[in-house]
Protein backbone atom coordinates (compact mmCIF):
# COMPACT_ATOMS: atom_id res chain seq x y z
CA UNK A 1 0.00 0.00 0.00
CA UNK A 2 1.36 3.39 -0.93
CA UNK A 3 2.49 5.70 1.85
CA UNK A 4 2.07 8.76 -0.31
CA UNK A 5 -0.11 11.34 1.31
CA UNK A 6 -3.51 11.72 -0.28
CA UNK A 7 -4.31 15.39 -0.77
CA UNK A 8 -7.86 16.62 -0.77
CA UNK A 9 -9.14 17.78 -4.11
CA UNK A 10 -9.11 21.46 -3.06
CA UNK A 11 -5.29 21.31 -2.52
CA UNK A 12 -4.48 21.09 -6.24
CA UNK A 13 -1.21 22.62 -7.45
CA UNK A 14 -1.23 26.40 -7.64
CA UNK A 15 -0.07 26.96 -11.21
CA UNK A 16 -0.70 30.68 -11.18
CA UNK A 17 2.82 31.29 -12.55
CA UNK A 18 1.62 29.79 -15.81
CA UNK A 19 -0.55 32.85 -16.38
CA UNK A 20 2.15 35.39 -15.61
CA UNK A 21 4.27 35.78 -18.65
CA UNK A 22 5.51 38.12 -21.30
CA UNK A 23 4.04 38.34 -24.76
CA UNK A 24 3.11 34.80 -25.85
CA UNK A 25 2.97 32.95 -29.15
CA UNK A 26 6.40 33.97 -30.39
CA UNK A 27 7.81 31.91 -33.26
CA UNK A 28 11.26 33.19 -34.13
CA UNK A 29 12.62 31.91 -37.41
CA UNK A 30 16.30 31.15 -37.90
CA UNK A 31 18.02 33.14 -40.62
CA UNK A 32 20.81 31.97 -42.87
CA UNK A 33 23.23 32.36 -40.00
CA UNK A 34 21.22 30.34 -37.49
CA UNK A 35 18.89 31.69 -34.83
CA UNK A 36 20.60 34.95 -34.03
CA UNK A 37 19.76 37.64 -31.51
CA UNK A 38 18.50 39.75 -34.40
CA UNK A 39 16.06 36.96 -35.31
CA UNK A 40 14.41 37.04 -31.87
CA UNK A 41 13.81 40.79 -31.88
CA UNK A 42 10.12 40.15 -32.47
CA UNK A 43 6.98 41.57 -30.95
CA UNK A 44 7.49 43.51 -27.75
CA UNK A 45 10.74 41.61 -27.14
CA UNK A 46 12.48 43.63 -29.80
CA UNK A 47 11.39 46.96 -28.41
CA UNK A 48 13.65 48.31 -25.62
CA UNK A 49 12.15 51.21 -23.68
CA UNK A 50 13.78 54.63 -23.89
CA UNK A 51 14.07 54.78 -20.11
CA UNK A 52 14.22 51.68 -17.94
CA UNK A 53 12.98 51.35 -14.37
CA UNK A 54 14.20 47.76 -14.20
CA UNK A 55 16.49 47.48 -11.18
CA UNK A 56 15.73 43.84 -10.42
CA UNK A 57 17.55 41.91 -13.12
CA UNK A 58 14.27 41.06 -14.84
CA UNK A 59 14.98 39.84 -18.39
CA UNK A 60 13.50 42.27 -20.91
CA UNK A 61 9.99 41.14 -21.78
CA UNK A 62 9.54 38.85 -18.76
CA UNK A 63 6.65 39.46 -16.34
CA UNK A 64 7.68 41.58 -13.37
CA UNK A 65 7.67 40.12 -9.87
CA UNK A 66 6.58 42.88 -7.46
CA UNK A 67 8.47 41.45 -4.48
CA UNK A 68 11.85 41.22 -6.24
CA UNK A 69 14.91 42.71 -4.60
CA UNK A 70 16.46 45.71 -6.28
CA UNK A 71 19.68 43.90 -6.96
CA UNK A 72 20.99 46.07 -9.75
CA UNK A 73 21.55 49.65 -8.70
CA UNK A 74 21.99 50.23 -12.41
CA UNK A 75 23.22 53.67 -13.37
CA UNK A 76 22.72 53.36 -17.12
CA UNK A 77 18.93 53.42 -17.51
CA UNK A 78 18.52 55.61 -20.59
CA UNK A 79 18.68 53.87 -23.93
CA UNK A 80 20.53 56.73 -25.60
CA UNK A 81 23.37 56.46 -23.08
CA UNK A 82 24.60 53.12 -24.38
CA UNK A 83 22.66 52.15 -27.47
CA UNK A 84 23.88 51.32 -30.97
CA UNK A 85 21.86 49.96 -33.86
CA UNK A 86 23.82 46.80 -34.61
CA UNK A 87 24.79 45.48 -31.18
CA UNK A 88 23.07 42.13 -31.79
CA UNK A 89 24.97 41.71 -35.02
CA UNK A 90 28.34 42.54 -33.45
CA UNK A 91 27.65 40.17 -30.58
CA UNK A 92 26.86 37.25 -32.88
CA UNK A 93 29.93 38.07 -34.93
CA UNK A 94 32.07 38.03 -31.79
CA UNK A 95 30.70 34.63 -30.79
CA UNK A 96 31.24 33.12 -34.20
CA UNK A 97 34.74 34.47 -34.75
CA UNK A 98 36.39 33.35 -31.51
CA UNK A 99 39.82 31.75 -31.55
CA UNK A 100 42.09 30.01 -29.10
CA UNK A 101 45.47 31.38 -28.17
CA UNK A 102 46.49 27.83 -27.26
CA UNK A 103 45.66 26.06 -30.50
CA UNK A 104 45.06 28.59 -33.29
CA UNK A 105 48.52 30.13 -33.09
CA UNK A 106 51.23 27.99 -34.72
CA UNK A 107 53.56 28.28 -31.74
CA UNK A 108 55.91 25.70 -33.24
CA UNK A 109 56.99 28.24 -35.87
CA UNK A 110 58.70 30.44 -33.27
CA UNK A 111 62.45 29.99 -33.53
CA UNK A 112 65.26 31.71 -31.63
CA UNK A 113 65.67 35.36 -32.67
CA UNK A 114 68.50 37.82 -32.33
CA UNK A 115 68.70 39.12 -28.77
CA UNK A 116 67.68 42.68 -29.64
CA UNK A 117 64.70 41.42 -31.66
CA UNK A 118 63.58 39.06 -28.90
CA UNK A 119 63.94 41.79 -26.30
CA UNK A 120 61.90 44.17 -28.44
CA UNK A 121 59.18 41.54 -28.95
CA UNK A 122 59.08 40.92 -25.21
CA UNK A 123 58.94 44.65 -24.41
CA UNK A 124 56.03 45.08 -26.79
CA UNK A 125 54.30 41.98 -25.43
CA UNK A 126 54.70 43.37 -21.90
CA UNK A 127 53.18 46.69 -22.96
CA UNK A 128 50.26 45.04 -24.75
CA UNK A 129 49.52 42.69 -21.85
CA UNK A 130 49.36 45.73 -19.59
CA UNK A 131 47.10 47.69 -21.93
CA UNK A 132 44.72 44.77 -22.41
CA UNK A 133 44.16 44.59 -18.68
CA UNK A 134 42.62 48.05 -18.89
CA UNK A 135 40.65 47.17 -22.00
CA UNK A 136 39.11 44.27 -20.12
CA UNK A 137 38.52 45.98 -16.81
CA UNK A 138 36.81 49.10 -18.14
CA UNK A 139 33.92 47.58 -20.11
CA UNK A 140 33.40 45.04 -17.33
CA UNK A 141 32.50 47.82 -14.92
CA UNK A 142 29.92 49.22 -17.35
CA UNK A 143 28.26 45.86 -17.86
CA UNK A 144 27.24 45.65 -14.22
CA UNK A 145 26.12 49.28 -14.34
CA UNK A 146 23.66 48.81 -17.19
CA UNK A 147 20.06 47.73 -16.88
CA UNK A 148 19.31 44.29 -18.33
CA UNK A 149 16.73 45.98 -20.57
CA UNK A 150 19.67 46.99 -22.78
CA UNK A 151 21.13 43.52 -22.98
CA UNK A 152 22.37 43.84 -26.55
CA UNK A 153 25.17 46.34 -25.83
CA UNK A 154 25.81 44.56 -22.52
CA UNK A 155 26.44 41.30 -24.35
CA UNK A 156 28.75 43.02 -26.82
CA UNK A 157 30.76 44.30 -23.87
CA UNK A 158 30.78 40.85 -22.29
CA UNK A 159 32.21 39.45 -25.51
CA UNK A 160 34.77 42.26 -25.56
CA UNK A 161 35.93 41.31 -22.07
CA UNK A 162 36.46 37.75 -23.31
CA UNK A 163 38.41 39.07 -26.30
CA UNK A 164 40.62 41.25 -24.11
CA UNK A 165 41.21 38.36 -21.77
CA UNK A 166 42.51 36.33 -24.70
CA UNK A 167 44.72 39.24 -25.80
CA UNK A 168 46.19 39.44 -22.31
CA UNK A 169 47.05 35.79 -22.31
CA UNK A 170 48.36 35.58 -25.87
CA UNK A 171 50.91 38.37 -25.38
CA UNK A 172 51.97 36.90 -22.06
CA UNK A 173 52.43 33.58 -23.84
CA UNK A 174 54.49 35.23 -26.56
CA UNK A 175 56.77 36.84 -23.98
CA UNK A 176 57.40 33.49 -22.34
CA UNK A 177 57.62 31.33 -25.46
CA UNK A 178 61.04 32.01 -26.93
CA UNK A 179 63.73 32.35 -24.32
CA UNK A 180 62.74 35.80 -23.09
CA UNK A 181 60.16 36.89 -20.56
CA UNK A 182 58.22 39.91 -19.42
CA UNK A 183 60.12 43.19 -19.36
CA UNK A 184 59.67 46.64 -17.88
CA UNK A 185 56.08 47.71 -17.29
CA UNK A 186 55.24 50.92 -19.11
CA UNK A 187 53.27 52.51 -16.31
CA UNK A 188 50.73 53.40 -18.96
CA UNK A 189 47.88 51.93 -16.97
CA UNK A 190 48.53 54.50 -14.26
CA UNK A 191 48.46 57.33 -16.77
CA UNK A 192 46.51 58.10 -19.89
CA UNK A 193 45.37 54.57 -20.59
CA UNK A 194 44.22 54.10 -17.04
CA UNK A 195 42.36 57.40 -17.10
CA UNK A 196 39.82 55.79 -19.41
CA UNK A 197 38.49 54.13 -16.29
CA UNK A 198 37.81 57.51 -14.68
CA UNK A 199 34.99 58.28 -17.11
CA UNK A 200 31.64 58.62 -15.37
CA UNK A 201 29.58 58.57 -18.54
CA UNK A 202 29.41 55.66 -20.97
CA UNK A 203 29.83 57.77 -24.10
CA UNK A 204 32.83 59.51 -22.58
CA UNK A 205 34.35 56.12 -21.80
CA UNK A 206 33.51 54.73 -25.23
CA UNK A 207 35.03 57.71 -27.03
CA UNK A 208 38.26 57.16 -25.11
CA UNK A 209 38.30 53.38 -25.17
CA UNK A 210 36.70 52.34 -28.44
CA UNK A 211 37.33 55.24 -30.81
CA UNK A 212 40.65 56.65 -29.72
CA UNK A 213 42.35 53.97 -27.64
CA UNK A 214 41.33 50.81 -29.48
CA UNK A 215 41.61 52.54 -32.83
CA UNK A 216 45.27 53.19 -32.00
CA UNK A 217 45.81 49.65 -30.73
CA UNK A 218 44.16 48.29 -33.87
CA UNK A 219 46.84 50.02 -35.91
CA UNK A 220 49.54 48.57 -33.65
CA UNK A 221 48.14 45.07 -34.07
CA UNK A 222 48.05 45.48 -37.83
CA UNK A 223 51.57 46.83 -37.70
CA UNK A 224 52.45 43.75 -35.66
CA UNK A 225 51.88 41.63 -38.72
CA UNK A 226 54.37 43.77 -40.58
CA UNK A 227 57.06 43.20 -37.97
CA UNK A 228 56.31 39.55 -37.26
CA UNK A 229 59.29 37.24 -37.54
CA UNK A 230 57.34 33.99 -37.86
CA UNK A 231 53.87 32.64 -38.60
CA UNK A 232 52.96 32.53 -34.92
CA UNK A 233 53.49 36.25 -34.40
CA UNK A 234 51.74 36.91 -37.68
CA UNK A 235 48.68 34.99 -36.54
CA UNK A 236 48.65 36.61 -33.08
CA UNK A 237 48.56 40.12 -34.46
CA UNK A 238 46.12 39.37 -37.26
CA UNK A 239 43.63 37.66 -34.94
CA UNK A 240 43.92 40.35 -32.28
CA UNK A 241 43.39 43.02 -34.93
CA UNK A 242 40.12 41.38 -35.98
CA UNK A 243 38.80 41.51 -32.43
CA UNK A 244 39.97 45.05 -31.99
CA UNK A 245 38.26 46.17 -35.20
CA UNK A 246 34.99 44.81 -33.79
CA UNK A 247 35.43 46.85 -30.61
CA UNK A 248 36.16 49.94 -32.67
CA UNK A 249 32.99 49.23 -34.67
CA UNK A 250 31.00 49.20 -31.42
CA UNK A 251 32.34 52.65 -30.55
CA UNK A 252 31.73 54.08 -34.01
CA UNK A 253 28.15 52.83 -34.08
CA UNK A 254 27.39 54.08 -30.56
CA UNK A 255 28.81 57.49 -31.44
CA UNK A 256 26.80 57.52 -34.65
CA UNK A 257 23.65 56.75 -32.65
CA UNK A 258 24.47 59.64 -30.31
CA UNK A 259 24.94 61.95 -33.26
CA UNK A 260 21.58 61.00 -34.70
CA UNK A 261 19.53 60.94 -31.51
CA UNK A 262 21.13 63.22 -28.93
CA UNK A 263 21.83 66.65 -30.45
CA UNK A 264 21.83 68.17 -26.96
CA UNK A 265 25.02 66.20 -26.24
CA UNK A 266 26.95 67.08 -29.41
CA UNK A 267 29.11 69.77 -27.83
CA UNK A 268 29.88 67.58 -24.86
CA UNK A 269 30.98 64.78 -27.18
CA UNK A 270 33.12 67.17 -29.20
CA UNK A 271 34.91 67.94 -25.91
CA UNK A 272 35.60 64.23 -25.40
CA UNK A 273 37.11 64.16 -28.88
CA UNK A 274 39.16 67.29 -28.10
CA UNK A 275 40.61 65.45 -25.16
CA UNK A 276 41.26 62.26 -27.13
CA UNK A 277 43.04 64.21 -29.85
CA UNK A 278 45.25 66.02 -27.35
CA UNK A 279 46.45 62.57 -26.32
CA UNK A 280 46.98 61.60 -29.95
CA UNK A 281 48.98 64.78 -30.58
CA UNK A 282 51.01 64.30 -27.41
CA UNK A 283 51.55 60.74 -28.47
CA UNK A 284 51.10 59.59 -24.92
CA UNK A 285 48.36 57.16 -25.73
CA UNK A 286 50.11 54.57 -27.82
CA UNK A 287 53.62 53.41 -28.52
CA UNK A 288 53.40 54.49 -32.15
CA UNK A 289 53.05 58.02 -30.89
CA UNK A 290 56.18 59.05 -29.09
CA UNK A 291 59.51 58.03 -27.71
CA UNK A 292 58.81 55.37 -25.11
CA UNK A 293 60.30 52.00 -24.37
CA UNK A 294 57.53 50.42 -26.41
CA UNK A 295 57.97 52.78 -29.37
CA UNK A 296 61.70 52.05 -29.43
CA UNK A 297 60.84 48.36 -29.41
CA UNK A 298 58.49 48.95 -32.35
CA UNK A 299 61.19 50.77 -34.31
CA UNK A 300 63.68 47.96 -33.69
CA UNK A 301 61.17 45.34 -34.81
CA UNK A 302 60.10 47.32 -37.89
CA UNK A 303 63.69 48.09 -38.88
CA UNK A 304 65.03 44.61 -38.25
CA UNK A 305 67.36 45.31 -35.34
CA UNK A 306 68.73 48.11 -33.20
CA UNK A 307 71.37 48.79 -35.86
CA UNK A 308 68.50 49.66 -38.24
CA UNK A 309 66.61 51.78 -35.76
CA UNK A 310 66.26 54.78 -38.08
CA UNK A 311 64.70 52.67 -40.82
CA UNK A 312 62.25 51.33 -38.31
CA UNK A 313 61.45 54.77 -36.99
CA UNK A 314 60.65 56.00 -40.49
CA UNK A 315 58.23 53.12 -40.94
CA UNK A 316 56.74 53.89 -37.55
CA UNK A 317 56.14 57.51 -38.53
CA UNK A 318 54.45 56.44 -41.75
CA UNK A 319 52.21 54.10 -39.81
CA UNK A 320 51.38 56.79 -37.27
CA UNK A 321 50.22 58.97 -40.15
CA UNK A 322 47.86 56.22 -41.26
CA UNK A 323 46.71 55.81 -37.69
CA UNK A 324 45.67 59.46 -37.60
CA UNK A 325 44.07 59.29 -41.05
CA UNK A 326 42.00 56.30 -40.02
CA UNK A 327 40.95 58.01 -36.78
CA UNK A 328 39.77 61.06 -38.73
CA UNK A 329 37.76 58.92 -41.14
CA UNK A 330 36.19 56.99 -38.26
CA UNK A 331 35.10 60.18 -36.54
CA UNK A 332 33.68 61.40 -39.85
CA UNK A 333 31.76 58.13 -40.08
CA UNK A 334 30.16 58.83 -36.67
CA UNK A 335 28.83 62.17 -37.91
CA UNK A 336 31.13 64.31 -35.77
CA UNK A 337 33.56 65.07 -38.60
CA UNK A 338 32.83 68.79 -38.97
CA UNK A 339 35.57 69.39 -36.42
CA UNK A 340 38.12 68.54 -39.12
CA UNK A 341 36.73 71.18 -41.47
CA UNK A 342 35.97 74.04 -39.09
CA UNK A 343 39.40 74.27 -37.46
CA UNK A 344 38.43 72.76 -34.12
CA UNK A 345 40.67 69.71 -34.58
CA UNK A 346 44.42 70.14 -34.94
CA UNK A 347 44.90 66.74 -36.49
CA UNK A 348 44.33 67.85 -40.07
CA UNK A 349 46.95 70.57 -39.58
CA UNK A 350 49.31 67.95 -38.19
CA UNK A 351 48.82 65.79 -41.26
CA UNK A 352 49.32 68.75 -43.56
CA UNK A 353 52.58 69.64 -41.80
CA UNK A 354 53.74 66.04 -42.07
CA UNK A 355 53.01 66.07 -45.79
CA UNK A 356 54.84 69.38 -46.35
Amino acid at each position, binding site marked *: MSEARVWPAEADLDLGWMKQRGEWGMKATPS*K*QGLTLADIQIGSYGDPVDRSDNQTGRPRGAAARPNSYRIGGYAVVNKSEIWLENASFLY*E*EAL*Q*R*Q*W*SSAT*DVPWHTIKPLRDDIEQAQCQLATFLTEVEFVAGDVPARWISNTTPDYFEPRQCLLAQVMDESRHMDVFRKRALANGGGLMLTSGGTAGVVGSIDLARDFTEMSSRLHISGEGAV*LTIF*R*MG*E*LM*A*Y*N*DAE*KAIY*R*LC*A*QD*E*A*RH*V*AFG*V*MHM*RYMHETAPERHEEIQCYLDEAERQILAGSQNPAGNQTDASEALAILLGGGKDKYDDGLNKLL*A*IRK*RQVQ*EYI*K*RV*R*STGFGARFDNGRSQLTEMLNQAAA
Partner: protein
Amino acid sequence: MRFPSESWFNAVAEVFNGDESFQGGGGGACNTLMGAKVGDRNFLITFEGVECTGAREVKAAELEAADFYLDMAPADWRAMIQNIASNGHADLEYTLNTLDLDREQGLAHSVHGDQYREDLFFRYNQTLQYYFDASARVATEFGQ
Protein backbone atom coordinates in the same frame (compact mmCIF):
# COMPACT_ATOMS: atom_id res chain seq x y z
CA MET B 1 41.53 28.33 -64.31
CA ARG B 2 42.56 31.69 -65.68
CA PHE B 3 43.22 34.66 -63.39
CA PRO B 4 41.66 37.17 -63.36
CA SER B 5 38.22 35.87 -64.18
CA GLU B 6 34.83 35.45 -62.57
CA SER B 7 35.24 31.69 -62.81
CA TRP B 8 38.56 31.83 -60.94
CA PHE B 9 37.06 33.74 -57.99
CA ASN B 10 34.10 31.36 -57.94
CA ALA B 11 36.39 28.32 -58.06
CA VAL B 12 38.24 29.68 -55.03
CA ALA B 13 34.88 30.24 -53.34
CA GLU B 14 33.99 26.60 -53.92
CA VAL B 15 37.18 25.41 -52.22
CA PHE B 16 36.67 27.93 -49.42
CA ASN B 17 33.07 26.85 -48.81
CA GLY B 18 33.99 23.18 -48.86
CA ASP B 19 36.56 23.32 -46.08
CA GLU B 20 35.05 23.67 -42.60
CA SER B 21 38.43 24.45 -41.08
CA PHE B 22 38.10 27.92 -42.61
CA GLN B 23 35.15 28.58 -40.30
CA GLY B 24 37.20 28.26 -37.10
CA GLY B 25 40.41 29.69 -35.77
CA GLY B 26 39.25 33.28 -36.05
CA GLY B 27 37.26 32.67 -39.22
CA GLY B 28 33.46 32.32 -39.11
CA ALA B 29 30.60 34.70 -39.69
CA CYS B 30 31.59 37.25 -42.29
CA ASN B 31 29.19 39.63 -43.99
CA THR B 32 30.75 41.88 -46.53
CA LEU B 33 30.88 42.78 -50.18
CA MET B 34 34.55 42.82 -51.18
CA GLY B 35 35.88 44.22 -54.41
CA ALA B 36 38.98 43.17 -56.30
CA LYS B 37 40.62 45.45 -58.84
CA VAL B 38 43.09 43.69 -61.10
CA GLY B 39 44.39 46.23 -63.57
CA ASP B 40 41.33 47.38 -65.49
CA ARG B 41 39.20 44.41 -64.51
CA ASN B 42 36.95 44.53 -61.48
CA PHE B 43 35.15 41.91 -59.40
CA LEU B 44 32.70 41.86 -56.52
CA ILE B 45 32.85 38.94 -54.11
CA THR B 46 30.04 38.38 -51.61
CA PHE B 47 30.48 36.83 -48.16
CA GLU B 48 27.35 35.90 -46.21
CA GLY B 49 27.55 34.05 -42.91
CA VAL B 50 30.22 31.39 -43.21
CA GLU B 51 30.06 31.20 -47.01
CA CYS B 52 31.39 33.03 -49.99
CA THR B 53 28.17 33.12 -51.99
CA GLY B 54 29.59 34.22 -55.29
CA ALA B 55 31.73 36.48 -57.39
CA ARG B 56 30.94 38.47 -60.51
CA GLU B 57 32.85 40.71 -62.86
CA VAL B 58 31.61 44.28 -62.83
CA LYS B 59 32.34 47.67 -64.34
CA ALA B 60 34.67 49.93 -62.36
CA ALA B 61 31.80 52.17 -61.27
CA GLU B 62 30.13 49.25 -59.55
CA LEU B 63 32.98 49.01 -57.05
CA GLU B 64 31.13 51.78 -55.25
CA ALA B 65 28.89 49.10 -53.79
CA ALA B 66 31.82 47.31 -52.17
CA ASP B 67 32.57 47.84 -48.49
CA PHE B 68 36.21 47.93 -49.64
CA TYR B 69 38.15 46.74 -52.63
CA LEU B 70 41.65 45.34 -52.96
CA ASP B 71 43.67 47.17 -55.58
CA MET B 72 46.94 45.78 -56.92
CA ALA B 73 48.69 45.74 -60.24
CA PRO B 74 48.25 42.45 -62.13
CA ALA B 75 51.90 41.54 -61.47
CA ASP B 76 51.38 41.98 -57.72
CA TRP B 77 48.22 39.85 -57.76
CA ARG B 78 50.16 37.23 -59.63
CA ALA B 79 53.02 37.30 -57.11
CA MET B 80 50.58 36.88 -54.21
CA ILE B 81 48.71 34.00 -55.83
CA GLN B 82 51.93 32.24 -56.81
CA ASN B 83 53.27 32.67 -53.28
CA ILE B 84 50.09 31.12 -51.88
CA ALA B 85 50.27 28.26 -54.38
CA SER B 86 53.86 27.43 -53.55
CA ASN B 87 53.39 27.53 -49.75
CA GLY B 88 49.81 26.31 -49.44
CA HIS B 89 49.06 29.67 -47.82
CA ALA B 90 50.47 33.19 -47.88
CA ASP B 91 53.89 33.38 -46.28
CA LEU B 92 55.18 36.21 -44.12
CA GLU B 93 55.53 38.67 -46.99
CA TYR B 94 52.24 38.07 -48.74
CA THR B 95 49.41 38.17 -46.20
CA LEU B 96 46.73 40.70 -47.08
CA ASN B 97 47.49 42.84 -44.07
CA THR B 98 51.21 42.93 -44.85
CA LEU B 99 50.51 43.86 -48.45
CA ASP B 100 48.23 46.62 -47.18
CA LEU B 101 50.85 48.04 -44.83
CA ASP B 102 53.67 47.69 -47.36
CA ARG B 103 51.93 50.09 -49.74
CA GLU B 104 51.94 53.78 -49.06
CA GLN B 105 48.34 54.05 -50.24
CA GLY B 106 47.38 50.68 -48.80
CA LEU B 107 45.81 47.65 -50.45
CA ALA B 108 42.22 48.12 -49.30
CA HIS B 109 40.34 51.16 -50.59
CA SER B 110 36.77 52.31 -50.94
CA VAL B 111 34.85 54.64 -53.18
CA HIS B 112 32.58 55.87 -50.37
CA GLY B 113 35.39 56.68 -47.91
CA ASP B 114 33.41 55.41 -44.91
CA GLN B 115 36.01 54.06 -42.47
CA TYR B 116 33.37 51.96 -40.67
CA ARG B 117 32.90 49.95 -43.86
CA GLU B 118 36.59 49.99 -44.75
CA ASP B 119 37.31 48.57 -41.29
CA LEU B 120 35.57 45.37 -42.40
CA PHE B 121 38.83 44.55 -44.14
CA PHE B 122 40.41 44.35 -40.68
CA ARG B 123 37.40 42.82 -38.93
CA TYR B 124 37.19 39.91 -41.35
CA ASN B 125 40.85 39.72 -42.25
CA GLN B 126 41.34 36.09 -41.25
CA THR B 127 38.37 34.97 -43.35
CA LEU B 128 39.61 36.96 -46.33
CA GLN B 129 43.05 35.42 -45.86
CA TYR B 130 41.47 31.94 -45.73
CA TYR B 131 39.61 32.74 -48.93
CA PHE B 132 42.75 33.66 -50.85
CA ASP B 133 44.71 30.83 -49.21
CA ALA B 134 42.07 28.48 -50.67
CA SER B 135 43.37 29.48 -54.11
CA ALA B 136 46.35 27.20 -53.44
CA ARG B 137 43.99 24.37 -54.42
CA VAL B 138 42.91 25.98 -57.70
CA ALA B 139 45.19 25.37 -60.67
CA THR B 140 45.79 28.88 -61.92
CA GLU B 141 46.95 30.29 -65.24
CA PHE B 142 47.68 33.95 -65.69
CA GLY B 143 46.75 36.37 -68.42
CA GLN B 144 43.85 38.44 -69.63
